[in-house]
C-alpha cells in the first residue's frame, strides 16, 4: 500500500480546513482512497485548526503514523498539534518565513524544512487567500494536476461566481510557481481514476444507512459529535416522506421515537454518551413494550462531559449492561466509515424484525472522519415488522407467546386490535400483571426473539486464519486491518482478525467457530478499563493465553503501533 499524508495548519479564518477538503476531493478524482480528520482548538469559532489528509492507493480506515508534508500558514498554537502530526527526518515542513521560527515542538524529529512566502504571495494576487496559495504549493509538490484542482474548485466555488474562482486559480498558480524548487512527494496513484469514488463521513454514512433501512421518523437533540447524523437526516427525510422533530432533551427524543414507532413508523435518534445515559430508562421501556427503535451513539470520551470531540470505545458497558432488569436488546458497532452505512441499515432491519431497541455504537473518529471510499454496497435489508392484520375473531394478544418470540403488532387505526403497549409487566393481552408465571413467560419470549434469530455471517468480520487471533471491534478495526496488511505484505501471515459487529445478543457458537484452532489472542480496544475484554470474558470462551492492547482516548490507535505490538506479541 502506498500512502501520502499531508497536514495543513493555520489559525482561525486562515482556511486550513478548506484546503484539506479541496485536497481530498481533488485526490478522489484521481482515484485515490483517503481519510481526512481535523483537529481544532477549543474555541467555538476561530482558533487554530489542522486538516490532516491521508491518501492511499488502497481503501484505508486509519489515520497516519507519520506525515510526509506539514504546511503551516502561521505558527500560532501549532505546537498543540505536535502529538497528532508526527514528523520524522523524511517529513517536510513548509512554512512562511514572515511568520517567524518553526516551533521547537515540531523540529525535534529533525524534519526537512522549506520556506514559501505564503502571506506575501497572497497579497500579490487580487483577492488572493493564503489557503489557496497553500493549495497551489501542495498541488505542485504532490503532483496534483490542474484539471483535478479546477474541477473541485468549480464545484466548491461555483456559487461564489467567476471572480472568486479566478482569484483562487491565480493564487494556486502563484503557489505552484513558488514550490517549483521543492523536491516532490508524489501521490500514491498514477492518475487513472478507476471507478468513481464517494466522499462521506461516518455520521452521514450512518444517516444514509438509516434511510436505506426505512427510517421515517427522527427526534433530535443536538450533541457533539452526533449532530451531523441528525442534520443530514433532516434533509434526507424531507425528500423521502419522513419527519424530524427537535426535542427538548434526550429524554424527550427517545420517547418521541417510541411514540412514532408505536404509530407504525420506523424511528431513530442519534446521540453521544451523556444523551445515551439519559435514554437508558426508555430503552428498557422499548424492550418491555416491544417497540422497535434505533439509537445511534457516536461515542466520545467519558465519563460525564468527558472529551466531547474525541473518540473512545467506553460506552460499551452502558450500551450492553445499562438497562435495569433483564432486558435483552441489540447492540451493534460499525467497524469502518463505509460500514456505518451497512451496520446502521442492518440495525434498522433487526430492530423492526425483532421489535426491540437497537443501539449502534459508532464513535467520533468514524463519525467525523471524511473518507474517500468505493460506493457502499446496496443491501436488501429494509426494516419490516410483523404486523397484525386483524384479530381473527379472537381477543387480540399484543404479546402473544409465539415460537419465535415475535408477536404480530397492531398499529393504531386497525379496528378490533386495540391494546396498551406497556412498560409494566403484562400478560399476552397486554394487561398489567405481576404474577410469576406472566413475568417468566414474557421474559422468556423477549429473550427468545434474540436467541432464535439467525443473524448470519454479518455478526463479525473474520479475516485470515492461523493459531493467533486479534479480536477487536468498532473503529479500532481500521488500524488493526492495516497493521495486519503490512505484516502480510512482508510475508508474515498466520494471524486471524475477528472484528465483532453484533455485540449483543452474543453468538457463542459463531464465536467458537471463529476461534477454532486459535491458541493465543490479542485484544485491542480504546477503553481505559478494558470494557471489551471484560465483555468477552463474561460471554465467550477464550484461550488462556490472552494479551491486551488498550488505551483511553484521545490518542487513537495508529497502524504503526498496532503493527509493532502484533510483531512483538506474535514473533512473526
Amino acid at each position, binding site marked *: 500500500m502506498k500512502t501520502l499524508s499531508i497536514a495543513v495548519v493555520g489559525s482561525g479564518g486562515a482556511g486550513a480546513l478548506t484546503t484539506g477538503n479541496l485536497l481530498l476531493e481533488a485526490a478522489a478524482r484521481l482515484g485515490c482512497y483517503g481519510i481526512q480528520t481535523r483537529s481544532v482548538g477549543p474555541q467555538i469559532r476561530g482558533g487554530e485548526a489542522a486538516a490532516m489528509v491521508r491518501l492511499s492507493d488502497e481503501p484505508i480506515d486509519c489515520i497516519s503514523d507519520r506525515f510526509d508534508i506539514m504546511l503551516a500558514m502561521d505558527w500560532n498554537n501549532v505546537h498543540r498539534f505536535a502529538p497528532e502530526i508526527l514528523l520524522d527526518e523524511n517529513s517536510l515542513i513548509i512554512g512562511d518565513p514572515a511568520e517567524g521560527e518553526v516551533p521547537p515542538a515540531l523540529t525535534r524529529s529533525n524534519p526537512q524544512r522549506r520556506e514559501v512566502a505564503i502571506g506575501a504571495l497572497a497579497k500579490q494576487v487580487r483577492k488572493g487567500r493564503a489557503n489557496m496559495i497553500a493549495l497551489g504549493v501542495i498541488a505542485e509538490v504532490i503532483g496534483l494536476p490542474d484539471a483535478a484542482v479546477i474541477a473541485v474548485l468549480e464545484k466548491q466555488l461555483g456559487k461564489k461566481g467567476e471572480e472568486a474562482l479566478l482569484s483562487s486559480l491565480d493564487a494556486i498558480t502563484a503557489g505552484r510557481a513558488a514550490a517549483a524548487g521543492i523536491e516532490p512527494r508524489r501521490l500514491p496513484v498514477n492518475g487513472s481514476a478507476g471507478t468513481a469514488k464517494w466522499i462521506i463521513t461516518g455520521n452521514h454514512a450512518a444517516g444514509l444507512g438509516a434511510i436505506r433501512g426505512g427510517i421515517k421518523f427522527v427526534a433530535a437533540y443536538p450533541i457533539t459529535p452526533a449532530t451531523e447524523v441528525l442534520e443530514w437526516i433532516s434533509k434526507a427525510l424531507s425528500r423521502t416522506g419522513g419527519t424530524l422533530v427537535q426535542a427538548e432533551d434526550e429524554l424527550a427524543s427517545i420517547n418521541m421515537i417510541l411514540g412514532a414507532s408505536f404509530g407504525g413508523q420506523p424511528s431513530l435518534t442519534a446521540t453521544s454518551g451523556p444523551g445515551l445515559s439519559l435514554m437508558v430508562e426508555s430503552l428498557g421501556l422499548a424492550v418491555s413494550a416491544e417497540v422497535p427503535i434505533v439509537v445511534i451513539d457516536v461515542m466520545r470520551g467519558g465519563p460525564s462531559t468527558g472529551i466531547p470531540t474525541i473518540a473512545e470505545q467506553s460506552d460499551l458497558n452502558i450500551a450492553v449492561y445499562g438497562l435495569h432488569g433483564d432486558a435483552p436488546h441489540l447492540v451493534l458497532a460499525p467497524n469502518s466509515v463505509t460500514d456505518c452505512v451497512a451496520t446502521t441499515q442492518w440495525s434498522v432491519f433487526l430492530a423492526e424484525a425483532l421489535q426491540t431497541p437497537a443501539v449502534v455504537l459508532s464513535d467520533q473518529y468514524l463519525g467525523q472522519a471524511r473518507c474517500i471510499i468505493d460506493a457502499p454496497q446496496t443491501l436488501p435489508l429494509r426494516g419490516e415488522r410483523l404486523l397484525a392484520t386483524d384479530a381473527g375473531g379472537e381477543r387480540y394478544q399484543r404479546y402473544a407467546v409465539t415460537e419465535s418470540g415475535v408477536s404480530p403488532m397492531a398499529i*393504531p387505526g386497525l379496528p378490533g386490535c386495540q391494546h396498551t403497549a406497556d412498560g409494566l409487566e403484562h400478560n399476552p393481552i397486554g394487561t398489567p400483571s405481576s404474577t410469576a408465571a406472566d413475568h417468566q413467560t414474557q421474559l422468556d419470549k423477549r429473550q427468545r426473539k434474540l436467541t432464535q434469530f439467525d443473524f448470519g455471517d454479518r455478526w463479525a468480520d473474520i479475516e485470515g486464519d492461523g493459531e493467533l487471533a486479534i479480536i477487536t471491534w468498532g473503529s479500532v478495526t481500521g488500524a488493526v486491518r492495516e497493521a495486519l496488511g503490512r505484516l502480510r505484505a512482508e510475508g508474515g501471515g498466520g494471524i486471524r482478525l475477528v472484528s465483532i459487529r453484533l455485540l449483543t445478543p452474543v453468538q457463542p457458537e459463531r464465536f467458537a467457530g471463529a476461534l477454532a484452532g486459535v491458541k493465543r489472542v490479542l485484544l485491542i480496544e480504546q477503553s481505559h478499563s478494558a470494557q471489551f475484554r471484560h465483555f468477552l470474558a463474561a460471554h465467550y470462551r477464550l484461550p488462556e493465553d490472552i494479551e491486551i492492547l488498550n488505551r483511553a482516548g484521545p490518542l487513537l490507535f495508529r497502524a504503526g503501533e498496532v503493527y509493532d505490538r502484533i510483531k512483538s506479541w506474535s514473533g512473526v
Partner: protein
Amino acid sequence: MSQTAEAAAPVTLTPNDYKSNIKPIWCPGCGDYSVLLEITKALAALALRPENVAIVSGIGCSSRFPAYSNCYGFHGVHGRALPVATGLKIARPDLTVLCTGGDGDGFSIGGNHFLHACRRNVDLTYIVMDNQVYGMTKGQASPTTDPDWDHVLMPGGTGTRAFQPLVIALASGANFVARAFSGDPAMTTDIIIEAIRHPGFSFVQILSPCVTFRPDQREWRNFVRQAPVPETNDPSRAARRIMSDDGFNLGILYRGDRPPYRISRKAEFEEVTAIGKEFLV
C-alpha cells in the same frame, strides 16, 4: 383531531365502547373513576372510533388510564407521556391523541416536557388529574401540594410554593387552558369535548380528589364554582384571572388561535435509492 375519522364513524357509539373490561386499581371513591367516565362520554359524543384514538400516559394512579380504555394505549415511563404523545401525533396526524396523567408525573418529573409541549403546540389533549399528592407511592407532597401540608417525608410541609400549572401553560403557549372538577361530570365532559376539538395543545386540569391520602379533598365539591367570567382569547387576561383565583374556578379559561405545530411531510417523495448521490465525487 381527525375530521375523516369523525365523519366515517357510526352514530351508535356509547361510552361503554371506549371502556376495557379491566378493573381499575383505583381506591373506592377516587375521582379518577369519574374522569374515566367523562373521557369515554366525550369520545362517544365526538363519535371517534376507538381504534382511531390513542391514549398515552406515564406513571402514577391516573397514568393507569390507557389500560382501562378500549382505545389504543401507551403506558410508558414516569414523566415522559407528552414526548411519546408528541412523537405519535407527528408521525400519525390522522389519530386523535390524548395524554393522561397526574400532577407528579406531569409537573415534577415531566415538568420540562410540559413547558415544551405547550410551546410546540402539537394538536394533543393533555388531561391532568390533579390531586395534589403522590398517591401510588402512598401520599407524598407533589408540585401542586400546599407548602405546609404535613407528611412523614417532609414533616411540617415542603415549604415550597405550589406549582401553578394553568399559568405556566399559558405562559408557555398552550392553545387551550381549562379547569374542571371530576365530581361535575356534565361540565367536565363538555370541557374535554371542546379540548379535543380545539386545534393545537389543549391542557385540562381536572381536580380529582384522592380520598385515601387527601381526605380533606372531599370538601372540594363545596369549593368549586363555574368561573364568574366568560372564557377569553387574551392570554394575559386569562393569566391574571388564574393567578388571582383560589384554584376552584372551573371552565374553559383560555382558548387561543395560535396555529398548531406544522407537520411537513411531502405527499410525493423520492425513492430511497435517490438519496446519497451527493456523496459521489
